[in-house]
């Protein structure tokens, strides 16, 4: 069997290849091709679908380097990631440790409640938050004024200095449920016997957590951090449906910038598809770089601690 020629093996697998066709068509058309095409588009001066595009080489990239809106949006995307991921991971971990207690009867119910914002469409969350946080008689401002926590209404989504923090809180609220599930899955890999043995030996519960459970779930932390970080970089729907990058571009992250440049330019301006593609290429490559760095780091850590994972 092992000496079959490649041609023979290909022929023997003909039905398997047939099975691959639908999946590969979708993958090729909507993932692989767009990835490659973006590179090509990024070298074009292109003012709209159906318009003639002109090859300009690397001009889009050199222009981007002098575009302060691009710089600001790029930095903002990564700041937003740093503002949300640590809080989200910590909050979800604490909740997961509490909810993982099998004696807690309503654990499933609480998990479902925390998860509800995850399944809610972002457009709906946009509406709710704009209403709730409205500076004109919005319920949250009403509550804050009544309890005396603030003396003046706070324009949560309309003030350039606090808008990004407001969005970070909304974001953490929306996605903590998913991180919670990840942590719970990690905690499930801890054998029950470990807790029992520790209890019999009179080990305190915080010691069990810090010295026994944490090392076991540590390898998962890397994966969860990576997924959360990438998720936080793809925050377009939330921002577009609440502030559209405003006020005065103060919440414009990379994807909002790309969308605005390619599809929704200010009146009187042409869409710049090539330019937006170039921004997308830089953003995509940064994310791939982030993934690779994280993978290398995780491999290093694992090599140092070969007993776990």
């Amino acid at each position, binding site marked *: 069997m092992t000496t079959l020629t490649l041609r023979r093996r290909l022929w023997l697998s003909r039905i398997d290849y047939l099975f691959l066709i639908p999946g590969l068509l979708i993958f090729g058309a909507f993932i692989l*091709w767009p990835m490659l095409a973006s590179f090509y588009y990024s070298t074009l001066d292109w003012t709209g679908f159906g318009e003639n595009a002109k090859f300009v080489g690397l001009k889009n990239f050199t222009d981007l380097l002098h575009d302060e809106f691009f710089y600001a949006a790029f930095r903002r995307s990564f700041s937003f990631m740093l503002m949300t991921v640590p809080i989200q991971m910590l909050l979800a971990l604490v909740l997961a440790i509490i909810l993982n207690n099998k004696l807690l009867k309503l654990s499933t119910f609480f998990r479902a409640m925390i998860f*509800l914002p995850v399944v809610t469409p972002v457009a709906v969350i946009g509406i709710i938050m704009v209403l709730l946080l409205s500076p004109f008689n919005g319920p949250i401002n009403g509550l804050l004024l009544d309890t005396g926590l603030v003396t003046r209404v706070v324009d949560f989504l309309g003030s350039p200095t606090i808008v990004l923090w407001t969005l970070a809180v909304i974001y953490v609220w929306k996605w903590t449920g998913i991180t919670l599930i990840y942590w719970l899955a990690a905690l499930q890999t801890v054998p029950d016997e470990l807790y029992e043995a520790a209890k019999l030996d009179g080990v*305190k519960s915080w010691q069990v957590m810090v010295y026994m459970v944490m090392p076991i779930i540590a390898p998962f932390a890397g994966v969860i951090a990576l997924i959360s970080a990438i998720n936080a970089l793809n925050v377009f729907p939330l921002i577009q449906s609440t502030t559209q990058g405003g006020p005065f571009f103060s919440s414009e992250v990379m*994807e909002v910038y790309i969308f605005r440049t390619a599809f929704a330019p200010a009146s009187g301006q042409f869409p710049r598809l090539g330019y937006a593609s170039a921004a997308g290429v830089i953003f995509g490559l940064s994310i791939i770089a982030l993934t690779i760095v994280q993978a290398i780091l995780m491999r290093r850590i694992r090599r140092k601690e070969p007993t776990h994972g």
Partner: protein
Amino acid sequence: MADVMTHKDPFFTPRRRRQLVSVLLAALSAIWVYPLVWMIFASFKPNSELFSNPGMIPDAPTVENYVRAWREANISTYFFNTLFVTVGSVVITSIASALMGYVLGRRPVPGRFAIMGLMVFTLFIPQGYTIIPVFELLTKLGLGQSLWGLMLATCGHSIVVFTLLFAGYFTQMPKELEEACRMDGVGPVKTFVYVMLPLAKPIIVTVVVMQSLQAWNDFLLPLVITLANPAMRTLSVGIYSFKGENFVDWGGMTAASTIAIVPIILLFLFLQRYFIDGLAGAVKG
């Protein structure tokens, strides 16, 4: 789970502690879902009451908002558009990813590791990076202005994750399955349909549930595809545009929002286990 406190203080028995934790969790859950509950109540308030009555319960409950949203704001059209895109993309994605996951997971096909590697490489590509070529491709195919195009492109989002889920699951099944089928003279297609697929039922349900969520809530893709064609909007985009076009009709907006979240929340509550399993599988894999 004993703590220092429990030894000293007989009042804080582990049981009491659990009850206290439950109360705290209940309070947190209430705060957590408050925005959603508030919106559902608000959708029954007339517009005049929405901002003047800060309480949750409407003074004069009305379904007027729903009637207006459904009839005048085209929410009925958007609802059926979303349903079409969701159902279609769920069918296509589950079939395509099951077939591909099966072959990549357990068939000795030349080139399968190359395909797998390529797929894993693209796992984290942001949507903002691919959206321009996707739209251009659909336009060239003549699908840029049709719900079919939106449906097909929606299949692309998670096909890699789903394929890897299927592949991981199929790899674990005993090798003898296909041999037994071959001995009995069952062809490869029948083996897949009658032996393999029924065994992969948990993954199929997970994929169906996750793709429904993805398609129902998708935003950037339908927003771009329907920019020039409002009649094709999905609920998410419809609600988003509602805000821009009828910015005084908050009652209508909350009603439309409630229409958009009810199906997906019901799906989640009934099939919760599969949501959780699917997500947990993504981390473990």
